[in-house]
């Protein structure tokens, strides 16, 4: 084998690795589709699934238009430099010069993003990041089902998936990001950078969106609106688990010329540890939420995800035994957060805040306690509680809750946030698409528990 072919082989391995990891990440979206569709009521199943499907298009295109550039352009802003773009001096040197090289490859008109045999990797990294962005927006998608206008969701998804989350990633999941360089922030699996941002963004939206009709009685007491297809929800979450293995594998950095696998922060790690630790976190999370929710199926299955997110930030550093404990704590406490959110009058249909927002915070802050003191480069502070707190606070509050609340507030004032009560009662499938999700089964009739609509078995139709 010639040196040229060896060099190309290294490039091909790297290119293939991210390509296939990203393909498997699509299973997260298959899972979200099934999860949300199953969690909705039968009268809303089509609208819920189509809205979820649109997430791919909305984010895929906007991430190409400006999201990929935001990721590369924002790491220095505002603490260590400005936003890097076409206005930056092309002769810049040092860190700005290095960032500028990446920025120039991220413009939608960049030759690096088209078929180009001189650059095999920029495109595949774009692919992986676009999938990350879609995942972020999908978290919001589940929380707001059965009452949000598709247009409002599209706007919110763009803000979250192609901007605020991407800014968080530029600051906290980037070798040039100021979370790292100034505070020693470490978030390997994007606990706060992705899940924390999305969970808190969803919380801000839910406050303005309001609960589904019938969710709370006149005294404000919550009623259970059961998923119309809990088995589908469970299958969906299992698919999300599969996709998460790929998501976390895609967080490993291996490019030609390296002699070891590293994190985005440049610290050594192994892909094997992702396999071991993700598996243990998944198992421990399910156990934790099973015990604390007393075997409630919805929370139990969500516990696997809660466990993984609770350890995501330090997945590359924790010992397996520590993983089990942290995942257990995160998932054990998650159902109580879900119950508290509901008690506060907020209708989070899929527990997005509890699973992603709360566990995202747990995950990022746990690094400050259980993986403190790790060096990440010369002149960079050691990992610790202060650095983790700064990053987590900025992600969840500044880039999550405030934009979510603010944009949804404006949409609400403009009457563009929520469907009309008539549409909501008749079901979004009929009002938006004119067809039912289950046309051969006239399932949905008003059945009598306190005015809550629930599926009615088609037995009478069948026997008639």
């Amino acid at each position, binding site marked *: 084998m010639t040196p040229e072919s060896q060099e190309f082989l290294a490039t091909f391995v790297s290119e293939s690795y991210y390509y296939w990891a990203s393909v498997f990440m699509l299973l997260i979206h298959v899972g979200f589709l099934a999860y949300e569709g199953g969690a909705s009521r039968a009268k809303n199943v089509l609208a819920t699934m189509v809205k979820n499907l649109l997430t791919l298009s909305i984010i895929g295109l906007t991430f190409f238009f400006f999201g990929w550039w935001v990721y590369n352009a924002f790491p220095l802003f505002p603490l260590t430099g400005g936003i890097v773009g076409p206005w930056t001096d092309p002769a810049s040197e040092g860190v700005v010069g290095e960032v500028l090289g990446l920025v120039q490859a991220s413009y939608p008109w960049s030759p690096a993003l088209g078929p180009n045999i001189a650059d095999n990797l920029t495109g595949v990294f774009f692919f992986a990041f676009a999938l990350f962005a879609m995942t972020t927006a999908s978290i919001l998608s589940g929380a707001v089902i059965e009452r949000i206008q598709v247009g409002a969701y599209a706007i919110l998804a763009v803000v979250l998936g192609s901007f605020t989350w991407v800014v968080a990633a530029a600051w906290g999941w980037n070798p040039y990001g100021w979370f790292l360089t100034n505070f020693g922030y470490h978030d390997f699996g994007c606990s706060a950078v992705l899940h924390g941002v999305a969970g808190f963004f969803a919380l801000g939206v839910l406050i303005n969106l309001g609960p589904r009709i019938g969710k709370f009685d006149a005294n404000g007491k919550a009623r259970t609106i059961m998923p119309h297809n809990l088995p589908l929800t469970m299958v969906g979450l299992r698919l999300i688990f599969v996709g998460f293995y790929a998501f976390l594998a895609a967080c490993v950095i291996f490019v030609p010329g390296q002699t070891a696998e590293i994190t985005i922060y440049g610290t050594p790690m192994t892909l094997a540890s992702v396999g071991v630790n993700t598996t243990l976190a998944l198992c421990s999370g399910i*156990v934790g939420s099973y*015990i604390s929710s007393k075997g409630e199926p919805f929370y139990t299955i969500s516990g696997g995800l809660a466990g993984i997110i609770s350890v995501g930030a330090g997945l590359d550093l924790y*010992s397996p*035994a520590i993983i089990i404990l942290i995942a*257990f704590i995160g998932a054990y406490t998650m159902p*109580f957060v879900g119950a508290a959110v509901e008690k506060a009058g907020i209708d989070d249909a899929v527990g997005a805040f509890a699973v992603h927002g709360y566990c995202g915070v747990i995950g990022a802050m746990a690094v400050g306690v259980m*993986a403190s003191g790790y*060096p990440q480069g010369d002149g960079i502070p050691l990992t610790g509680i202060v650095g983790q707190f700064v990053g987590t606070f900025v992600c969840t509050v500044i880039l999550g809750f405030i934009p979510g609340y603010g944009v949804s507030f404006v949409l609400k004032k403009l009457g563009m946030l929520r469907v009309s009560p008539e549409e909501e009662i008749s079901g979004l499938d009929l009002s938006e698409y004119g067809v039912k999700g289950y046309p051969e089964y006239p399932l949905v009739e008003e059945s009598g528990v306190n005015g809550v609509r629930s599926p009615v078995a088609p037995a009478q139709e069948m026997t008639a």
Partner: protein
Amino acid sequence: MSSPFSTIEEFNNVLDGPTEGAIYTFANSPVINIIALLVAVGIFIWFMVATYTTHADPSSSMDQSLNHLSTFLVVGLLSVITAAGSYANRSPRAEQPMAQHKSTLSSGYGQAAGKIPLGLLGMVGVGLPSLRRRARRKARQKALSNFLRR
């Protein structure tokens, strides 16, 4: 500190270091990970027991289970680990010559003293369920004796 490294050079050259490639938390203090493993096994046994006692009960909300003393068990054991971890990371300093590092040593003892409440919390957490069992046993014995008197 849970990191086995203090500089990026040590981290990058971990194959040549004392942990021989291991980069995980407490790799330089295996006892911490062993304790954590024992706790993890304890949690699993708790789960196995819970599968027999977990039944659908719409009348009891999840909030009530927060009061269960098993919560204290978990919190307690974890705080024991945290306190033990702090102690284990402090011990290498104590092995240094006292004359040269008197001030460091005394501040180390100060830190250890600060961890004592955490450790105590852990021990209390571990002990609470047994106290509860004792109370239950007493209650059962009392009920039995009352029954026999009739």
